Every structure is written in structure tokens, then in C-alpha cells.
């Protein structure tokens, strides 16, 4: 069994009750299985991560594994290891 930290923001953090949470995962886990475990643990997240129609993440989200955009890795199938940190990010737009 391994432990992964998942950081979230805005409404997702509110549903979870805190800005980050630690999840125990089986070996061989991927980003997808960690996020699915997160949704299973917090049912309020249903429909807030995955696009049920297209199967991937919702278009406005992006996910970083240890600071790296998973789309520049192996996407949702990127392997996750003990001690890793996943950030589920919602860009709004800063800059002014």
C-alpha cells in the first residue's frame, strides 16, 4: 500500500473539506485510478472531474503529477508511486 497526496481547489476543496487529502493506493495505480478513488471517497465530486461522455477529464481542468502536467507525461494512465503529489487545478486567469 502506498500514499498519494491529492491537492484540490475551489469547490472541490470545499467538498473534501480541506485543500489536500492523502489517499492510500494499491501498487500499480495510475492517475486515473487515484482520481477515481478520490471520487469514490467523496461522492460530491461526481461529475466534477470526469467528463462522463468523453471519458477524460473535464475540459477546464488540468492535473499535475509532482508539478508536471500529465498531458506531457502519459495522461491519465501515468503511473503513480508512493509519496507522489497530484494537483487537480482549475485555471481562472490572472495576469492584470
Amino acid at each position, binding site marked *: 500500500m502506498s500514499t498519494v497526496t491529492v*491537492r484540490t481547489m475551489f469547490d472541490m476543496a470545499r467538498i473534501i473539506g480541506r*485543500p489536500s487529502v492523502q489517499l492510500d493506493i494499491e501498487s500499480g495505480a495510475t492517475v486515473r485510478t487515484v482520481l477515481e478513488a478520490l471520487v469514490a471517497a467523496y461522492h460530491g465530486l461526481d461529475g466534477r472531474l470526469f467528463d462522463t461522455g468523453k471519458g477524460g477529464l473535464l475540459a477546464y481542468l488540468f492535473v*499535475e503529477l509532482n*508539478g508536471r502536467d500529465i498531458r506531457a507525461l502519459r495522461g491519465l494512465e501515468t503511473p503513480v508511486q508512493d509519496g507522489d503529489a497530484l494537483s487537480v*487545478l482549475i485555471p*481562472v486567469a*490572472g*495576469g492584470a
Partner: protein
Amino acid sequence: MMMGKILRVNLTTGQITEQPYPDALARQFMGGAAAAIKLLYDEVDPRVDALGPDNKLFVSTGFLVGTSAPTCSRVAFVAKSPLSGTVGYANSGGFFPNELRATGVQAIIVEGKAEAPVYLWVSDSKVEIRDAQEYWGLSTIDTQHYMQQALHDGNIRIACIGPAGERLVKYAAIINERRASGRKGLGAVMGAKNLKAIAVRGKQDLPPLADPAAFKEAVKVLHAAMKDSPVLYHRFRNFGTAGNVELTVKQGDMPARNFQEPAGEEYLSIGAQAGTGFRTRHYSCDQCPVMAGQVRTVSSGPYAGYTSEGPEFESLYSLGSDMCITDMGACIAMDRLCDELGLDTVSFGATVAMAMELYERGILTRKDTDGLDLKFGNHEAAVAVLRKVAYREGIGDLLAEGSRLAAERIGGEAPKYAMHVKGLEFPGYDPRGLKAMGLNYMTAYTGADHSRGHSEQEVFGIPVPHAVDRLAIEGKAALTIFNQDVGAAVKDSSMLCTFVVRLALLPKDLGPKLVADFWRAAQGYDVTPEDVVRVGERLTNVARVWNLRAGFTRADDTLPERLLMEPLKTGASQGHRISPEDRDFMLDEYYRLHGWDARGVPTPERLKALGLEALVADLPRA
């Protein structure tokens, strides 16, 4: 051609002339910032004193300004920057830009220096240099209020300076309504010319569009893209730019304590969600349906009664985390005071953050700070310093010079702690976790400027032109060139709102295409998306050669020692820095892809390919 006229105002002689917009300028540089920077190149010697009469101020709108295209009421101010000595460019929105275009004026060139305070009055029928003695000393808000009252017209729009600009604070802003052309110290350029304000009132129809039906179709496409964005009318409207606090805290890239550490969860107290508790209304620029502006009011505590249109994200960093201030009320109060007194929030906060570090290290003492306990987190001291900077009193006179010059004057180890590139203080993204942003800071023609080549892919995860690993240095040269050149054309020259480009157009890779459609329909030019990007490439090269002539070299394309040598200590970007080797790797590739030599000098071949043959003679010798 549907471009308006160029107004040339000489404050020394009082002469005012008009000229038609040169077709070659419109074709090669489109308008907005690109056209203004080309005029700067042609008319201002890079070695002039930025606060002397030989510097010029260029006020420039784009071809979309004042049309039915939404979110385009934007204006560019350009001059030699007194803060950095580079090309100085800042822009703002609000209502002033559309009003200026409605006078029939596309751009204004202000030359010389008036003997006594004046303001420029531009209307449909009249252009006059008028006495501004009665307004000198007033805040930007009072200046606008009393000028409108004196002219009996509440719809007059005014871009003006406050006490900071009058006193030549090196990072004084130009304010129209409550919007700021904040950065690069262009307010001090106005102050040095004794120019308090530019007041405009226009009721003219724009010159006819070349193809009204095609233009209408492009407007429909823009509206559809905006509506299709999953963020623009939802989270962005609700949170505004402050939403970036939550994001960058998670990424570990929001600087705190003068870049000694990344901002942690404790700074969510100045984030978007906390901000909604202060919001009293939304506002928008002219012809913007998004209304993402957040008017926030403090209702209790020591800053009760302060209301500000903001603070925007960069100000929440500079007035908040960079000074270790977690009190949203203090940030709102300082944001308001900076606007009233005419100060750039970013350079002000970053300069004071440096002073706080120097104070904590014992390099500055209470004797130097007029008795203020200038430790990190002391917002009361920061507010006191703000007033001192604006009026150049005590320690404020030193800090009014900006971090680079102030640190040089303090001497010793102080320059090590000045966080700037080419004299321009950093905005709110620590480049150690955002490598393309770091390369952009190093190479942007204005210094450490997020607005020139914002790495949208690294910060916002926008996968266009492709998804990136923000912690890697490979591929960042091409990405930075894409961000700088496309942004220079699509945002800075057409004057489309940066947020609409980022949230609605970039994700669909629609920016150059849509601007080409607009440009073709407005001007009748046979242009492609590639021609639009070419405008940005010209801007980048013209500004580069001007800066080289000003004396900047490859050695200036760098970062402060802290960012090169000290890895981030905590957060999601922990352990990362941009080492000198990383810097050199990215710079070499950046120059090569630009068609520049190893010194960062554009090659004659590159300039000729861009139609900039005339610049070849100005290149420094090998």
C-alpha cells in the same frame, strides 16, 4: 483605410499638427503597441533621458478599438521607460480607449515639455493644450471628477497622473477611470512633460469598414468562442484574476517574502474565494459582456471604508504575499491608494518587499526607514511607505527609484536582493517552477514582464500549441517565441483583451486566424493568420534593436542570483531553479530560433525577411 488620424502635440512649442495614419505603418505593424513602438524606434534616440523633453509619449489604439467587436476598448502607452531604460509599454482598458477613437484620433504623439502643468483636450472639433494648474497635486480620482465637472460633461474620459507621476516616481502609473497603465513608469514620463492629463470626448462614427458583413461574421465568431469557454462567463466572471492565487499557491509558484519562499495555503486569505466576501459589485470595461472586474470593499477593521476595483492577481502578490501580508483589507486599501496616487502596484510592492528583506538583514535600520518597523507582514508600515513613495518623502524618496536603483544607492549586498530584470520588478510568477516564464522574463523587451509572453501553457495548462512540462527547460525557447510573438500581434496590436484571448481563443488556437479575419474585414488587406504573427515578430525585432541601441546586451538577458542559485524550498515546485546553465541553454536556443546571433543581435537576413531592412544599419557591430 479605417484608421483614424495621428495627432502630434509639441508641449514645448504648443504646436499641434495632424497627419493621416501611414498605410505602411498600418500594414506592417497593424496598430496598438506594435505601431507605437515602431514610431518610438523612428523618433526617439534610445540614449535620451527618459525624463527629459526628448523622450516622447505615444498613445495608440488598435483598429478594433471602438468597433462592435467586444472587449477591445484598450489603449497602449509607449515611451522610453524611466524605470528600466528599455522600451516602455503599458496598456489599459476601461472607457477612455473607445472614447479616444470616437474623436477620430487613432494615436497621439506627445513631444517636448510644457513650462507649467497642462492637460491635453481632444474632442471632435477641437484639440487644445490647456492650463492644468488647478489639477496639479490632485489624486487621479479627483482629477477626473473635477475635470469632468469643469467641462460640464460626465462622459469625458480622462487618462491622468497622480502625485507620484508629478514627482517623477520611477514606477508612476497612468490612470483612466480606475484602470491603470501601471507598469514601466510611464506616469513619470507624463509628469516630466508637465502633462497632468489627456481628456477626450468624441461622437464621431468610425471610418467605414472594408467589408461590414465579414466583420459582423468575425464578431459572431468571437462571441461564440467566448460563450463556448467553460471558464470565461463562469469562474472568471465570479472570481476575476484573483482566482490565480489559488492556482499558483497549488503550483508553488506564487512568490512570497521577496522570492525567498513560495506562498503557502495561508495566502488563500487573499485569494479569490476570500475576495468574494469583500465584493460589492462587478464592473466591466466598455463593450465587455464578461464583467469580470471585482469591486471590493472593506467593511471592518483598520481599513474599513476602502473600496477598490481589484486588487487583481499581480497586486495580490505584490501588495500581499511578496510582503508577507495576508490581510485582504490591507491589500484592498493599498490597491486603492496606489490608484489614487498613481503608482504601479507591482513595482511598489516588490520594491518595498526588497526593503523589508534589507531591514530584516540589518542592511536598512530604523534610522533609514524614518522609524518604521519595516519587517515582513507589517501592513501598517507598508501603507505608510506607500504615501512616502508617492510624495517622495524620507525613505519613500529612495524607494521611488525602484528596486534596482534603490539597491545600488544603498550599496553593499543590497543589489543581491533586488528582484528585477532590466530594472523592471517581477510580477507574481516565480520562474523557478515555470521555465518558459523565466525565459520570457529574461528576454521580454520590457524586462520582467508577464504580459509580453505569458506562459499560458505552464500556468493555466492550456495545451496550445501543445501541453508542456513546466519544470523542463527543453522546448521552452520555441514556446516563449510563440507566446511573445503571437501575444504581441493578437493582444498588443489589435488590442483584444488578454483574458478573452487566453480563455476563449488560445484553447481553440483561434487568435491569429480571427484577428486576420477582423483585419481583412476592417482594412481590406489580403492577410492571413501568418501575416498577423509576422506583426508580432516585427514588434519583437524592432524593440530588440532599439534596446540594443540603448546599450542592453546578452548579459542583461538574465535573472537575479536568487533565482539562478537558490532552489525553491517548499511546495509543488520544490527543488527547482533556473541554473546559469539552464539560462544559457534556453537563451542560445531562443536566439537561434529567432534568427539572431549568439549575442542576441538580429541578423541582417532576419530583419530583411521581416521587411525591416532599414534597421540593418543600426545593428551593433560584431
